[in-house]
């Protein structure tokens, strides 16, 4: 005859296993809450952990994209303001050339106008050789030195590379980081691409030479300056478009970052409400089983038999 259908040691064994199991469940839930993260080790949720790794990789690469975009934006703004100054110079030279084209002006007057144009040309060469935020030539493409070099006779020669180079903005998008000198200083005349700096030297020299050739030089110069002005304005439009493109990708990147952090929370974060509810449930069951264990364990036939 068996009075209770189980042995004493089996009862204690089973109770201790159940209570230990409940306790470890409660501790796991508590750890989830205090960490704020559902995934402590990859094996807690391999798919989620892998997704988190990819999101964090995208995040850290995106940080670099932000820095690159800021760099590209600064360089393009530097280019834009330099182009504005170039346009001012060209307008000033146009005024001077228009005065010089006037037949009533004396040779000496023209020569002084020519000298002033020569000075302005010197300023323009210095501006063309200005530096970008990284210390490289702003209009020299990918070369390290000055964009334009001057020979003994005062002729300016382009010394940079043919392209300015691209900066990655993330997701396979690029932006060209600036302009090379020839892209806005060379202007089209028919099929030829004369250089504004060379044209200005010819104008300045021609005006200082005096005589009938000086008036002709001034008239030729006016035509060239008008062409060059068009070229510079076009270049400003190009730079403005690129700046807008950088802004667009920045906005897109911000949106993507928001989406990524939302997904990170979804995949790896602890759902506080449901976790607290489950913790409370586990605690209730644990308390109940502890109480019932104490009651059952104190129930011994020995204490009743006298």
């Amino acid at each position, binding site marked *: 005859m068996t009075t209770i259908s189980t042995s004493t040691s089996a009862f204690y064994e089973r109770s201790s296993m159940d209570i230990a199991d409940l306790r470890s469940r409660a501790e796991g839930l508590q750890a989830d809450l205090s960490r704020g993260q559902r995934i402590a*080790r990859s094996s807690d949720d391999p798919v989620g952990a892998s997704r988190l790794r990819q999101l964090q990789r995208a995040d850290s*690469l995106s*940080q*670099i994209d932000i820095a690159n975009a800021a760099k590209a934006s600064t360089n393009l703004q530097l280019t834009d303001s330099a182009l504005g100054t170039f346009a001012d110079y060209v307008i000033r030279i146009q005024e001077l050339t228009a005065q010089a084209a006037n037949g009533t002006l004396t040779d000496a007057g023209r020569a002084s106008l020519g000298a002033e144009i020569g000075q302005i040309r010197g300023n323009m060469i210095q501006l063309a050789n200005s530096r970008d935020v990284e210390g490289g030539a702003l209009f020299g493409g*990918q070369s*390290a*030195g000055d964009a334009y070099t001057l020979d003994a006779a005062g002729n300016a020669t382009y010394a940079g590379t043919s392209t300015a180079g691209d*900066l*990655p903005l993330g997701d396979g998008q690029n932006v060209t980081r600036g302009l090379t000198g020839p892209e806005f200083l060379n202007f089209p005349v028919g099929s030829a691409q004369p250089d504004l700096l060379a044209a200005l030297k010819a104008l300045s020299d021609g005006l200082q030479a005096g005589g009938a050739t000086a008036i002709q030089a001034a008239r030729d110069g006016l035509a060239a300056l008008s062409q060059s002005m068009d070229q510079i304005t076009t270049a400003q439009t190009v730079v403005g478009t690129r700046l807008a493109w950088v802004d667009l990708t920045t906005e897109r990147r911000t949106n993507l970052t928001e989406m990524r952090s939302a997904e990170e929370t979804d995949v790896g974060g602890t759902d506080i409400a449901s976790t607290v509810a489950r913790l409370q449930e586990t605690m209730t069951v644990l308390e109940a089983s502890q109480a019932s264990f104490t009651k059952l364990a104190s129930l011994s036939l020995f204490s009743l038999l006298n």
Partner: protein
Amino acid sequence: MASDLLSIGRSGAQAARIALDVTAQNIANASTDGYVRRSAKLAEVSSSGGIGTIGDVSLSGVRLDSVVRNADLFRQAEVRRTGADAARADAEVAGLENIQAAVEQSNVYNAMVGFEASLQQLVGDPTSSSLRANVIEDARTMVGTFNIASSALDAVGTGLRFEATDAITQVNTLSGELARVNLRLARAADASSDQTALLDQRDSLLQQLSAFTDVSTTINADSTVELRLGGASGPLMVQGGASGTLSMTTAGDGTITFAVSGMAASPVAASLTGGSLAGKAQALTKLAAIHTQLDALAQTLANTVNTAQGNGITPANTAGQPIFAGGPPITAASLTLALANGAGLATAPAGAGANSRDAGNLNAMRTALGQADPVGGMDALLFDISGTVQGRTVTRDALRTIANGALVSLQAQAGVDLDQEAVNLVRFQQAFQASGKVMQTAKDIFDTLLAIR
């Protein structure tokens, strides 16, 4: 009439005393590990009538037939089998978790992303010496984490093999003990308390053995046990008073195999499928696979970067020298940083000239890295190991529940129930008192006869 009331009463009192002793023994051993509840089996002593005495009353009381050990062989075998499975899963999961920690906590994935990011940052200003130094330092960190991951994996392997060696010593000790118990069992008298104690010891040894390896047992008529390792067709480990020696062989890649020597002319290979030894062997096999993958990743990364580096030129207009070195072959452990200075990074394509800010070759390197995708490979490796851990944990929990169930069910049947023993105490005490009363009655009857005058 051959009955003797006094001796019947004496035998009853004696039997009740023995039953009380057995009950007391049960109570005393209620929480002893491996103790199986005993009960006294009593038998009537009487003789049937012979020729001419048919119908004669011939009662001689009661005697102790045997002390019964309430062990269920099937439940015991179940406890051993499920226990071996659970121990295997436990050991495997523990090993796999260590492997996961070795790869994950070395942070090699984050370091690889860091290197990738610093290369991308260098595109922004290829001639910047600080960005170049950043690339070199991130490469150094990555090399360090590869080395750490590799040595951590090696440490996990060493630990697993050390534990396996210890388990093998235990198996050999327990087997030797079992052989000695076999010898004594063959000599013990049937149903004696000596035999029951030896049987307890035998079953306890078998249960301890099943934690290390799966055992297949055959119980002989004389209660001795024949033990085979790794299933019914596995090599013989214990037979009668002889026991074999289990040994372990470590292969070049760190995996282990087992063999039993001493029972046959030559050592017999044992393929263990249960117990902690099998679990450790499985974990070591996975470890070898993970280590190979890690080495392959390190090699891919180093070769891809070095090849791209060799195609370009440094700012000093010299051909790029390898960034990584090691071996040969390049493994996660042998990987080193060969380039000490950021000035040696070949960012510009060949022919770009000195100090060129052209990032052509750097972009080619990043494209090549993107195609070989060692970072994605590392993610896949981490996913592989963590997925394995998760799957095995589910199996482990299921096997543990089954093993616990089997253990509780064995204990419910073979263990001591104190309430029942309390009832037995009362019952046998009453039986003892009743037998005493029988003797009192016999005396009274005798006195009555003597008093006739």
